[in-house]
C-alpha cells in the first residue's frame, strides 16, 4: 500500500516507519477488522445458545440440595463411620430433626425428599411423615423418637446417601445415565437388571441412526450418480425432486408418513383393496421401529444426496472411459475407479446424516411408539414429562452431545466445515 524506500539497512515506508512494523500494523488492523466483524455473531450465539446449553448441562453434576436444605445434618454426619454398620449417633439425629423442622417451615423439605427418593425409594414419604412431626420434637433422645415415628430411619442406605451427596457436586446422575448406582458398600456397580435402560437406549439410538445412514447411502448413491451424469438441464430438473422434500416442513413429511402407514392409512387400505391382506389383519407399520426408520430415512435422504452429488459432479467422465478402454468391465471400472473417488462425499453425507439422526426428536415422538423412540425423547420427558429429573436429563444430554461433537470434529477433519454445502 505504502511506497517503500531503502534508508540505511531497514526498509521504511514513505512516512519513515520501518516496513516490517508497518506491515505488522496493517496485518493487525485487518485482523482486528475481521475479528470485529465476527464478534457480534459470536457474542450473540454465546448468550442465546452456548451459555444456555452449558448452564443446562451443568445440572448433571451440580447438586446442592442436600447441603442447602439439611445444613446441620451434613456437618454432623461427618463424624459417622459408614463402614461401621451402625446407625449414626444422637447428634446426627438431632441435626436432621432440626433441619426437617426448618425445611418444613420454609417449604423446602419436599425438594430434598424428592432428590433422595431418586435413589432410595420411600425417602419421599419418610421425610413427609417425619417432617410433619419434627417441629414437635424439641428435646432428646432424638434418635429414639425419630425411630418411633418411622423405623425406616434405620435404613443405612439412606444415611449413606446423605453422607455421599452432602457436597455441591454429584456423580449420581451420570451413574444413573450409565445404568449404574452406588452399592451399599459404597462401590459402584450396575443397577438391577429390570431397571437398566439407558445403555440399551443409547445402543438403540446408535443402531437405528447407523441403519438409517446406511439406508440413506444405499438410496442416495444411485440417484446422485444419475443426477451427476445426466446433462445439466435434465439433471437440474430431477434435482427438484430432491430439493422439494428438503425444503418441505419436517412435520408435513411426518404427517404424510402417518397418513401412508397407519393401520387405516393409504398403504394398508391399498393392500386390503387389492386383496393381499385381510381387513382384519392390517399391518402395523407405524408406532414402532419400522415407522421411525422409514420416515427418518425419507427425511434425511436429501442430506446424503446433496454432498454425494457435489462430489460426483467433480469426477471427470473420462476416468471411466479410460478404464473401459484399458479393458475393464463396466462393473470393475465403476468399483475400482469411480467409487474410490466418491469416498469424500460418502464420508460427508454419512457423518452428516448420522449426526442429525442421533439427535432426532420430533419424528420418533410421533411415529416411534414403544420401540422406535430415541434418547432425545427420553431427555425431553425428563425435562417436562410426568416424572422430572433434570439432573438425569442433563447427564444424558452431556453423553449425547459428546457423541455428536466427536462426530462433528471428525467431520471437520475429513470434510472441513468450510466445505459444507447447502442446496
Amino acid at each position: 500500500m505504502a511506497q517503500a524506500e531503502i534508508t540505511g539497512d531497514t526498509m521504511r515506508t514513505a512516512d519513515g516507519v520501518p516496513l516490517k512494523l508497518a506491515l505488522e500494523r496493517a496485518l493487525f488492523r485487518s485482523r482486528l477488522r475481521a475479528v470485529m466483524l465476527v464478534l457480534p455473531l459470536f457474542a450473540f450465539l454465546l448468550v442465546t445458545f452456548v451459555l444456555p446449553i452449558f448452564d443446562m448441562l451443568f445440572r448433571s453434576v451440580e447438586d446442592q440440595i442436600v447441603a442447602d436444605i439439611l445444613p446441620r445434618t451434613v456437618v454432623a454426619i461427618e463424624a459417622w463411620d459408614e463402614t461401621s454398620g451402625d446407625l449414626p449417633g444422637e447428634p446426627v439425629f438431632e441435626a436432621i430433626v432440626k433441619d426437617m423442622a426448618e425445611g418444613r417451615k420454609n417449604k423446602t423439605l419436599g425438594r430434598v425428599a424428592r432428590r433422595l427418593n431418586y435413589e432410595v425409594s420411600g425417602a419421599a414419604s419418610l421425610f413427609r411423615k417425619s417432617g410433619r412431626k419434627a417441629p414437635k420434637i424439641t428435646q432428646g433422645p432424638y434418635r429414639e423418637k425419630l425411630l418411633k415415628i418411622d423405623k425406616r430411619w434405620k435404613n443405612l442406605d439412606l444415611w449413606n446417601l446423605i453422607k455421599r451427596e452432602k457436597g455441591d457436586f454429584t456423580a449420581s446422575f451420570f451413574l444413573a445415565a450409565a445404568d449404574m448406582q452406588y452399592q451399599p458398600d459404597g462401590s459402584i456397580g450396575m443397577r438391577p437388571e429390570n431397571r437398566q435402560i439407558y445403555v440399551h437406549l443409547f445402543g438403540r439410538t446408535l443402531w437405528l441412526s447407523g441403519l438409517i445412514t446406511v439406508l440413506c447411502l444405499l438410496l442416495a448413491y444411485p440417484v446422485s450418480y444419475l443426477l451427476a451424469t445426466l446433462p445439466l438441464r435434465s439433471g437440474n430438473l430431477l434435482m427438484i425432486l430432491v430439493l422439494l422434500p428438503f425444503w418441505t416442513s419436517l412435520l408435513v413429511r411426518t404427517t404424510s408418513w402417518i397418513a401412508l402407514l397407519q393401520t387405516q392409512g393409504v398403504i394398508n387400505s391399498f393392500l386390503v383393496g387389492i386383496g393381499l391382506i385381510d381387513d382384519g389383519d392390517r399391518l402395523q407399520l407405524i408406532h414402532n421401529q419400522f415407522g421411525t426408520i422409514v420416515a427418518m430415512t425419507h427425511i434425511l435422504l436429501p442430506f446424503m444426496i446433496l454432498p454425494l452429488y457435489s462430489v460426483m459432479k467433480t469426477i471427470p467422465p473420462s476416468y471411466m472411459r479410460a478404464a473401459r478402454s484399458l479393458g475393464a468391465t463396466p462393473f470393475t471400472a465403476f468399483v475400482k475407479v469411480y467409487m474410490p473417488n466418491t469416498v469424500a462425499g460418502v464420508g460427508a453425507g454419512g457423518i452428516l446424516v448420522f449426526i442429525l439422526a442421533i439427535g432426532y426428536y420430533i419424528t420418533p415422538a410421533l411415529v416411534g411408539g414403544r420401540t422406535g423412540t430415541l434418547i432425545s425423547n427420553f431427555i425431553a420427558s425428563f425435562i417436562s414429562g410426568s416424572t422430572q429429573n433434570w439432573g438425569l436429563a442433563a447427564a444424558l444430554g452431556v453423553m449425547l452431545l459428546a457423541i455428536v461433537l466427536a462426530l462433528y470434529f471428525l467431520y471437520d477433519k475429513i470434510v472441513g466445515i468450510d466445505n459444507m454445502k447447502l442446496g
Partner: protein
Amino acid sequence: MKRLLGSTSLALVAAFAMTASAQAVDLTFVSWGGAYTASQQKAYHDPYMAANPDVKIINDDSSAEGLAKLRAQVEAGNVTWDLVDMVAADAITACEEGLVEEFDPDELLAMAPDNTPASKDFIPGSLNPGDTNCYIPLIVYSTTFGFRTDMVGGTAPTTIADVFDLKKYPGKRALEKKPIGNIEWALIADGVPGEKVYEVMDTPEGIDRAFARLDTIKDSVIWWTKGAQPPQLLADGEVVMASAYNGRLFSAIAEKNQPIGMLWDWQVFDLDGWVIPKGTKNLAEVKKYLKFGTDTQRLADQAKFISYGPARASSAPLVGNHAELGIDMKPHMPTDPNNAKTTLNFDYVWWADHRAELDERFNAWLAK
C-alpha cells in the same frame, strides 16, 4: 455459575418487564386445553370477564408440562402464571416444594348457598390431598375404559379382566404410557381384590406379578401420552378398547356419536383443580377471581359442558342437562352410583415413594 448468569441477565429482565401493559389486568391461567379448557371458559371465565371488564383471562394450555414449567419459573424467580390446573399428585409435590401458595380455604373460597363453609362443602379430603393446604379441587374425574361396541363380537366387556383377556377380546388396546394405574389394573385382573392392591404392591413379588400380567398383553398395546389420543384411537378403529379420561369418552359418545361403550369397572378416581403459583404478580386479582370461580353454581355449570363431577357437595344437585345436547348429565358422571360400583382411589403417598423407581422399571420394560 447460576448466580453469575443471574446477575448478567438482570438488565435484560428490566428491559423486557417494561413492555407489559399496565392498563388492564391480564391473568394467565394454565389448563389442559381442548374440551376441558372450553368448559372452564364457558362456566367460569366468560361470566367473570363479563362482570369485570378490566380483567382479561388468557388460557395457556400447558398443564401437561405444568409442574416442570412452574418449577423452572419459581427456581428462576420469574413467575408469569397466575393459576395452574393440576392433578392432585402434582399439586402435592408443588405444595411440598414450596412452588405454590398455601391458604385457608374458608377465607379464600366462597361459602355454599346455605352458608356451609368451603372446608365442609368440598369432598372430604379433597382440599388437603397428602396433608397439603394448597389445592382448590374443581372436579372429580376418572380414568376408565371405553370399547368399540362394533368390534367386541356381540358381548360387551364388563370387567377389568376382560381388558387383559386377548382370547376373549382379540385386538389392540390403548393404555397410558406410565405405570400409575396400569399396575393396579394388572393386579386386579390377576385376581387381587381392589382393596388389597396397594398392600400387594408394597412387596417386590407384587410388582413382579403386575409386570408379568402386563407382559401377556404387551404386544397388543398402543401407549398413549395425551388425553385426546385414546378416543381418537377408538374412533379410528385402531384399538378395540382404551383407557381414557371419562369426560373425553363422553364427548366421543354423546357429542360425536361414536360407537363407543363405557366399561366402568375399577375406574380410578382422581381430582383436578387449581394451584396458585408462588410469586404471581396478580395475587389479589386471582383471589378475587377464585371467590367467584369456585362457588357452588360455577362448579355445577362446568358439568353442563363436560362430564366430570363437581368437587363441591352443594354443586351436585345443581348438575342438570348438557348445555347444548340437552341430555341429563347425571348418568354420565363417574360418581353416579351405577358407574361407581367398584372404584379405586390413587394412593398418592405410595406413588410418591415409588414413582422414580417404577418409572425406570416401566420404561426399561417398555424398551425391551
